[in-house]
């Protein structure tokens, strides 16, 4: 019995712990870990070490050294650190190493110390420098939080989709907070910080003071805080040795404890007590370790999924093993083999000893058109490694032309990008490439390029219509498209604020229409200019608005105002067809109530529109007296209609009877009233009966 418990030591009253060695670290470190920047990836991932970071001298031998070890201390890779001063190291969820520099630049390396990319945490951080930094993980990915020298917080929730957020100011904050942590609640990332006895919560928009429920009033100032891995629990440690444990929402206390140790702990972390599966907090000082826990909360940690396991194998370049696992587990192609092959291909393109042809061929041989493979992603990786030609070769295997375009643009193969964009049918892509070309090429070359791509050219014309009309003119000029140039000038004439400007633009249009051999449009526009000039005179002479009326309305207004001579002049000058002129004139005269002039006009010569319109228009203006004058002059076919209109049913009946037309007879009959038109009705009925007899 003894042997089982021999190495267990008591911890408090009802807990025991034991120490045993799982494995020996393979590394042979001369440096004290305390003097290195250290970051260990979660789930037994790699460990990153930066040595010599603190040394100030600039001699190359004393340059900091970045080393990456496996969890068991095997050296995976190392590089001398040549970039700026580092403040913090951290790992992303996908095992990339984040190196956070004092100036706010974050450099990303893979676990073989190969540089991937970098980004900046923004200007504010650059100016005020990084005081402290934390790398954190949420459902959105890996994030970075910075405390700057100006005691402001900046954070990015997901470094793969960088959106920098500058958190609100903490009022009156003059020195760095004693401790702080990043929390994630309701999909929002927030910062909790302690200054003396106060706790502040920073969200996107505001800073608020918070008090944990059940906090002892005499607890003192906060020294340390710890958030559980899943952001559910929070522990706070104060300078009286008091420990508060509760939900990170600060809505509930789980327990409290007085440790009676008043010094700052070296570390405080959440863990799971193995025998009770309950969360607990481990607090460590130099020579003391304490486990605190008392709660019914049960928290499940995420387990390593098969996808993550495969990712880790792939990251370690153990492709055949990963593929064999996929096959063994019968994972779908997209979920399993495709993903691994894609990773393999991305690795393959980095092999500098093989020619572009060889690599491209090898990749296509192995990948073929396996579902879920994105050749454009592999090509992007090749381009990142400086192998543009290889990237272009790989892109040829990409069936989605839409996917090819952004990379081709990045590689400055804009013309190829243009034809791929057009192939895709996606006009948005075409527009994107066109505007890219516009910035990249000089105007002449740009226009020439468009000439050969009608689809792109018409889209660019649309762009110009909305954004830069003047360019439109240059485009038409280049094509010698005089018809469109004419239209262009007509269009611009309407935005001229002065009549001379309008006439000038219209004259340009006339010239272009002639060049286009569109005689009709040229003549019409000349007429328009002529009309504008006349209208200006009328406007001045009669002090009435004439400009911008149509020819029809101009003549009509002249008649309305009694300027018959001028109207006549326009009728002749513009060759208004007789029929239309007569309609126009009698409508205008009737509107004016100038019945005398109308009668005179009706006798001036034989009406080209007949006399029924005279009847109709008089009746429309409720003047039966005048209407009756014209009814007898109407052609025989229209006479019935005319007499009915003027209300002379007797004559209408006579006309209908004379025509021997039953439909007309019925029409007149339908207008007869029994009391007043009995005689007419009788006459009609008789005639109709006779007609039917035959």
């Amino acid at each position, binding site marked *: 019995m003894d042997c089982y418990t021999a190495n267990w030591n008591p911890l408090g009253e009802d807990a025991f712990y034991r120490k045993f060695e799982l494995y020996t670290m393979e590394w042979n470190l001369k440096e004290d870990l305390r003097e290195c920047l250290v970051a260990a990836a979660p789930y037994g991932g790699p460990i990153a070490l930066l040595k010599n970071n603190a040394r100030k001298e600039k001699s190359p031998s004393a340059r900091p050294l970045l080393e990456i070890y496996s969890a068991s201390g095997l050296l995976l890779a190392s590089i001398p650190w040549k970039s700026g001063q580092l403040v913090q190291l951290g790992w992303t969820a996908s095992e990339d190493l984040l190196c956070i520099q004092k100036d706010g630049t974050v450099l990303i390396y893979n676990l073989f110390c190969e540089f991937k990319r970098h980004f900046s945490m923004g200007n504010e951080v650059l100016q005020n420098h990084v005081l402290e930094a934390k790398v954190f993980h949420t459902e959105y990915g890996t994030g970075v939080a910075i405390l700057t020298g100006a005691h402001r917080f900046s954070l990015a929730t997901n470094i793969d989709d960088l*959106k920098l957020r500058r958190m609100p100011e903490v009022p009156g904050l003059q020195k760095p907070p004693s401790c702080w942590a990043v929390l994630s609640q*309701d999909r*929002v990332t927030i910062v909790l910080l302690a200054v003396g006895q106060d706790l502040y919560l920073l969200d*996107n*928009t*505001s800073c608020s003071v918070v008090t944990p429920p059940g906090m002892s009033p005499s607890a003192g100032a906060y020294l340390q805080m710890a958030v559980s891995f899943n952001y559910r629990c929070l522990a706070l440690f104060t300078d009286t040795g008091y420990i508060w444990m509760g939900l990170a929402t600060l809505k509930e206390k789980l327990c409290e404890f007085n440790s009676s140790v008043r010094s700052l702990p070296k570390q405080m972390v959440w863990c799971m007590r193995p025998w009770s599966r309950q969360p607990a907090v481990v607090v460590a000082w130099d020579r003391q370790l304490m486990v605190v826990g008392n709660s019914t909360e049960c928290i499940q940690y995420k387990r390593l999924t098969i996808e993550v396991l495969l990712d880790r194998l792939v990251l370690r370049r153990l492709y055949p093993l990963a593929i064999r696992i996929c096959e063994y587990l019968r994972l779908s*192609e*997209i979920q399993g083999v495709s993903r691994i092959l894609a990773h393999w291909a991305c690795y393959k393109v980095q092999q500098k000893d093989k020619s572009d042809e060889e690599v491209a061929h090898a990749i296509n041989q192995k990948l073929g*058109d396996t*579902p*879920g493979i994105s050749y454009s992603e592999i090509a992007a990786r090749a381009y990142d490694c400086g192998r543009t030609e290889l990237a272009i070769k790989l892109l040829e295997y990409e*069936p*989605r*032309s*839409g996917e090819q375009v*952004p990379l081709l643009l990045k590689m400055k193969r804009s013309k190829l990008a243009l034809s791929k964009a057009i*192939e895709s*049918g996606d*006009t*948005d892509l075409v527009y994107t490439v066109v*505007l890219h070309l516009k910035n990249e090429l000089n105007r002449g070359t740009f226009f020439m390029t468009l000439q050969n791509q*009608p*689809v792109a050219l*018409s*889209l660019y*014309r*649309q*762009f110009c219509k*909305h954004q830069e009309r003047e360019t439109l003119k240059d485009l038409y000029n280049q094509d010698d498209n005089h*018809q469109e140039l004419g*239209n262009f000038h*007509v*269009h611009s004439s*309407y*935005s001229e*604020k*002065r*009549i001379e400007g*309008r006439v000038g633009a219209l004259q340009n249009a006339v010239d272009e229409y002639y060049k286009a051999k569109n005689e*009709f*449009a040229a003549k*019409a*526009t000349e*007429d*328009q200019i002529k*009309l504008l000039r006349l209208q200006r005179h009328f406007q001045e002479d009669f002090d009435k608005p004439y400009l*911008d*009326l*149509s*020819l*029809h309305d101009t003549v009509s207004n002249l008649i309305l105002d009694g300027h018959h001579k001028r109207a006549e002049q326009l009728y002749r000058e*513009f060759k*208004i*067809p007789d*029929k*239309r002129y007569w*309609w*126009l004139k009698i*409508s205008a005269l009737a509107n004016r109530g100038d019945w005398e002039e109308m009668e005179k006009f009706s006798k001036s010569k034989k009406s080209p*529109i007949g006399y029924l319109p005279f009847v109709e228009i008089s009746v429309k203006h409720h003047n039966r007296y005048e209407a009756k004058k014209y009814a007898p002059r109407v052609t025989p076919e229209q006479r019935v209609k005319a007499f009915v209109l003027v209300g002379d049913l007797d004559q209408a009946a006579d006309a209908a009877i004379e025509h021997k037309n039953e439909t007309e007879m019925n029409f007149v009959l339908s207008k007869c009233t029994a009391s007043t038109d009995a005689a007419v009705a009788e006459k009609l009925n008789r005639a109709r009966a006779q007609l039917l007899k035959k």
Partner: protein
Amino acid sequence: MAAHLSSGRVNLTALREAGRRELRQFLDKCAGSKAIVWDEYLTGPFGLIAQYSLLKEHEVEKMVTLKPGRLPQADVKNVIFFVRPKLELMDIITDNVLREDRGRSPQRDFHILFVPRRSLLCEQWLKEQGVLGSFIHREQYSLDLIPVDGDLLSMESESAFKECYLESDQTSLYHAAKGLMTLQALYGTIPQIFGKGECARHVANMMIRMKREFPGSQNSIFPVFDTLLLLDRNVDLLTPLATQLTYEGLIDEIYGIQNTSEDFFDNLTVEQEFMSGIDTDKANNYIEDCIAQKHPLIKILRLVCLQSVCNSGLKQKVLDHYKREILQTYGYEHILTLNNLEKAGLLKLQTSGRNNYPTIRKTLRLWMDDVNEQNPNDISYVYSGYAPLSVRLAQLLARPGWRSIEEVLKMLPGPHFEERQQLPTGLQKKRQHGENRVTLVFFLGGVTYAEIAALRFLSQMEDGGTEYVIATTKLINGTSWIKSLMEKLEPAPF
């Protein structure tokens, strides 16, 4: 409300549900209270997918129209722009964002929902204005084909015809192809594709390409549609110009137009004369009188275009005469509108010196003298004698097939074609005896109510053998159609 969508042969509710789901997912991404800033153009189409209550359930508290200037001071956590990917709109959004009060507390989060597609161009534009970083979520809502009725889908794209034929901008066709891909994802691959016209060819090409771009995505849904027929509006320019004489069509036509009954009758008589081929080659008295009396310009344009189409173009003298009459009466600024109509082929010069319309009319039996409007036995009842050309093409495709009308098809503009999409053997249809085929007819550039009525009539014919579902870029009538082609020139005041 969904009942009318599930009434047809194909249950279109599923399409609308998919649309709603996508919308809900987006709204939930922006946690907290929201204000929506609308591109006004989109309110109509959205109304067909989701009512206000759905938005409200997802914490939409305020809705405003997109316009330049400062955004209203709504006290919400999120401001979401619902916009089409147009640069003009990006400029307005930029203005809105730049004028947002940075000192306001709490600050509001901005998001953009592009409809129907996220645009690299627009994002580039916003980036150049320095505001791209202000948007937390930038997503797309692929609202392409919206179910309007149990057998009717519309893209609600007013300017599709104009863009395709006047501006050579085929954006709407790309959206149409995307919409058809979505439809196939929900209702199975359509095994046969027929088409007539340049736009139809382009859409079919894009569909085939899009399918090839995703070789792995094998559609395992049993196909609901047997055939897709893609028709360019410009293959049949005549039909929308004529006055529709079905109940729905008539309401659509006279809504907002005050015509005396006598004038309406005269107008109809002239239309029918043109369609039956009478006196189409000389200037028409009625049209001249209407111009002289300054009847509404759109009415005149409809008639003149109808005459031009029914005569395969007008003689130079006649065309110039009409144009001059119109310019003198309604104003010279309409020279650009006339030019647009010419570009669209609605108004043209008879170049070949030959009028093909009589041959087309006779072969396709477009004019039927003995119409029975009480108990119709032919689609010509929808225009009191005229059978819509577009619908005749659909009818003849089903039986006896287009091979019988090769000659006429060649006279109509654009290529005609057939494509087949392979189905795995398990999904090939074994038709039950008497089971009808289902054809989706897609009108690229718009469809009229009368054409819909004609297709519904064919669906209901006892021995028809085919049922039709209709898709279109937009529901149109002659007036709205002509209006979309008119150049709006407002003179600057002197």
